[in-house]
């Protein structure tokens, strides 16, 4: 086990010798094309997913909207939204960030990246074909696994290559110490292909009988969040918070506890999607216990992230990277604690089957994961391209649009969903379903407004992204001073 000071030295930018900086630069260089492929495609998918989201959201209060075409019916558009944002945006962004981080932290060049370019192209091709397939009606009717069966083998193979490459990169690590982010990344890269292949086999190619399908389904779907996106989000937070602030993480030992507790408990939590349903009571109880135990890794990670930040709020506010990432880390704590509470039978009996759950899913996937990815991209691109972000204004629009938008989103659906759940359980006073449904409409409308705010943020982000790609490098930016003074961009907030 490493001691805290050497870890601090390993990630503190001020202690780096010039040749180490040059080395870091070479490592970044070796990941550049790869990172740009994955991050670039993720940005495109983000926009595509947002369009599907807005259409689906509008339909939920105006059902006649675009209702004459079968391929635009709610069930298809909503599904296209989920799959493009999960497998298009979040997965691509996650892979881009993971490889860059893994190579940096392992202090090794990314080898034979060419194979990864091919699997990146294959992955994105599969997502394109799969999305068309969903709109055509070829989708598999399994939540989170809707891509038609003719693209899933391609998805699996290209992903498996990516996972193996990540693990190989870790194998070639130099130095004695592994940093906490590396554990999470290694785990995520290994867990996802396992989850995906088993779910495909047991749900699509050789479906099991009856309710075992539901158990497999929620074991998979919840773990995609818990064992794929969450570890990447935590890994990135663990890296960027101390890195940008220039101080070590609060406690190494806590990070060990946090990692194993997450690995152990998150796995089992998915069953809470089936509480009260036709599955054995002991599995439900196991799911509830695991969900409650998730409080441990969450609190531990929260202590580590938030105590590192305390006292440096000004710096957090001035750095685009940290503003997004700390927003994400705070919401990780909040969303996870709420999630544990939602597994309690008494709470679950209200929130289950309502829009509350939808709000919660976005709290995790967006307020936490997506915001952390945005923050990471703001740090990575200038280093990969050796250019600065062209406009602090656009970054500001991006931050406020998404942060305010997603907060409104989660709050509106949580309140609306809670009311809906209370009314559904109160048969005496609310015997008429239609009356309950009508009461949800204003909240669904607020969700559309929130979606529009988020969309504005996304447009600002994509404009920035394209702009930094095509803009010319200025003289200072090409000069080697970059190695000594890593550029920091401060937001003008006044």
């Amino acid at each position, binding site marked *: 086990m490493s001691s805290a000071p050497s870890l601090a030295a390993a990630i503190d930018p001020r202690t780096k010798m010039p040749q180490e900086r040059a080395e870091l630069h070479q490592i970044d260089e070796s990941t550049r094309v790869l990172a740009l492929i994955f991050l670039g495609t993720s940005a495109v998918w983000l926009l595509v997913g947002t369009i599907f989201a807005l259409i689906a959201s509008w339909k939920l209060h105006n059902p006649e909207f675009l209702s004459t075409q079968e391929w635009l019916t709610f069930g298809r558009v909503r599904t296209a939204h989920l799959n493009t944002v999960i497998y298009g945006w979040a997965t691509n962004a996650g892979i881009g960030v993971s490889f860059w981080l893994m190579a940096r932290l392992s202090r090794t060049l990314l080898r034979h990246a060419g194979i990864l370019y091919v699997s990146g192209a294959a992955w994105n091709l599969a997502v394109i074909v799969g999305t068309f397939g969903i709109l055509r*009606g070829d989708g598999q009717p399994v939540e989170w696994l809707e891509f038609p069966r003719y693209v899933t083998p391609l998805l699996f193979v290209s992903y498996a290559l990516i996972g193996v490459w990540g693990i190989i990169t870790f194998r070639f690590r130099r130095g004695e110490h592994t940093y906490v982010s590396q554990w999470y990344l290694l785990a995520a890269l290994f867990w996802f292909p396992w989850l995906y292949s088993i779910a495909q086999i047991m749900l699509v190619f050789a479906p099991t009988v009856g309710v075992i399908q539901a158990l497999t389904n929620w074991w998979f779907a919840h773990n995609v969040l818990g064992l794929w996106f969450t570890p990447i989000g935590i890994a990135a937070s663990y890296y960027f918070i101390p890195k940008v602030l220039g101080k070590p993480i609060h406690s190494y030992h806590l990070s060990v506890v946090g990692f194993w507790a997450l690995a152990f408990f998150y796995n089992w939590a998915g069953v809470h999607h089936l509480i009260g349903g036709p599955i054995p009571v002991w599995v439900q109880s196991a799911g509830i216990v695991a969900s409650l135990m998730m409080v441990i890794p969450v609190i531990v990670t929260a202590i580590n992230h938030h105590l590192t930040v305390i006292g440096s709020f000004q710096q957090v506010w001035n750095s685009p990277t940290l503003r997004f990432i700390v927003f994400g880390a705070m919401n990780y704590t909040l969303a996870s604690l709420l999630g544990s509470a939602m597994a309690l039978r008494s709470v679950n009996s209200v929130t289950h089957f309502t829009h509350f759950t939808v709000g919660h899913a976005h709290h995790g996937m967006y307020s936490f994961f997506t915001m952390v990815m945005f923050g990471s991209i703001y740090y990575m691109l200038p280093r990969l391209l050796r250019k600065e972000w062209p406009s602090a204004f656009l970054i500001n629009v991006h931050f406020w649009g998404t942060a305010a938008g997603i907060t409104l989103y989660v709050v509106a659906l949580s309140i609306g969903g809670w009311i809906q759940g209370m009314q559904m359980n109160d048969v005496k006073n609310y015997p008429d379903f239609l009356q309950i449904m009508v009461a949800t409409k204003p909240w669904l409308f607020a969700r559309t407004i929130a979606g529009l705010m988020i969309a504005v943020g996304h447009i600002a982000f994509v404009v920035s992204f394209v702009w930094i790609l095509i803009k010319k490098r200025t003289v200072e930016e090409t000069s080697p001073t970059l190695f000594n003074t890593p550029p920091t961009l401060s937001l003008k907030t006044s």
Partner: protein
Amino acid sequence: MNNGPLLFLGIFFTIAFSWSGIVLTNLVQQTEAGATQPLFDKDTEKVVPAPMTGDAKQGQQVYAELGCVYCHSQQVRNSLSRDGGTSVDVERNYGRRPNVARDYIQDGRIFLGTMRTGPDLRNVGQRLPSVDWHMQHLYNPQITSKDSIMPPFPFLFEEREIVGEPSPKALRLTGDWAPPPGYEVVPTARAEALVAYLLSLRTDYDLPEAPKSVE
């Protein structure tokens, strides 16, 4: 934690553990206990749950293709309180008893669902047995349920000129919904299969392991 292989083993075993616990154990347990087999009801001399008819199977496919599952669950939950008591779902007339695992073994693909943007449909065939009602509702939910946010499915129907006798299957639409004179709206084969499926959704038998049905 600088020992790579150990780290890897831990990562491997945590997921293997949850998979075998949640998925494999239940698979083995249910198969062993015979919970994946239908029973023979001596009183009615029928197999329960009954196998799906061909029409219903096709309708289930339409149900899948149109994503009804994203707004409708198909499970009558147990009582939510610890001390037993009746289930709210039964009170709400979603079914006469909570569902158990065996209820789903004839379904092929199952649609337990996670949302109730619309009502639970596990027993909709019992609650709403009228074909006409379903046809009108699917053509446009506003006809039967004003202000509904369920989407209309006009593409499951065909508006055509009446040649000779009007079709007996034509939707009885009045007022604003009526087609122009000389025209009629008839369900396509998909709409008919879908409605056959909806009407087949009914848990109208008892199972030894399930709570008794209420009247």
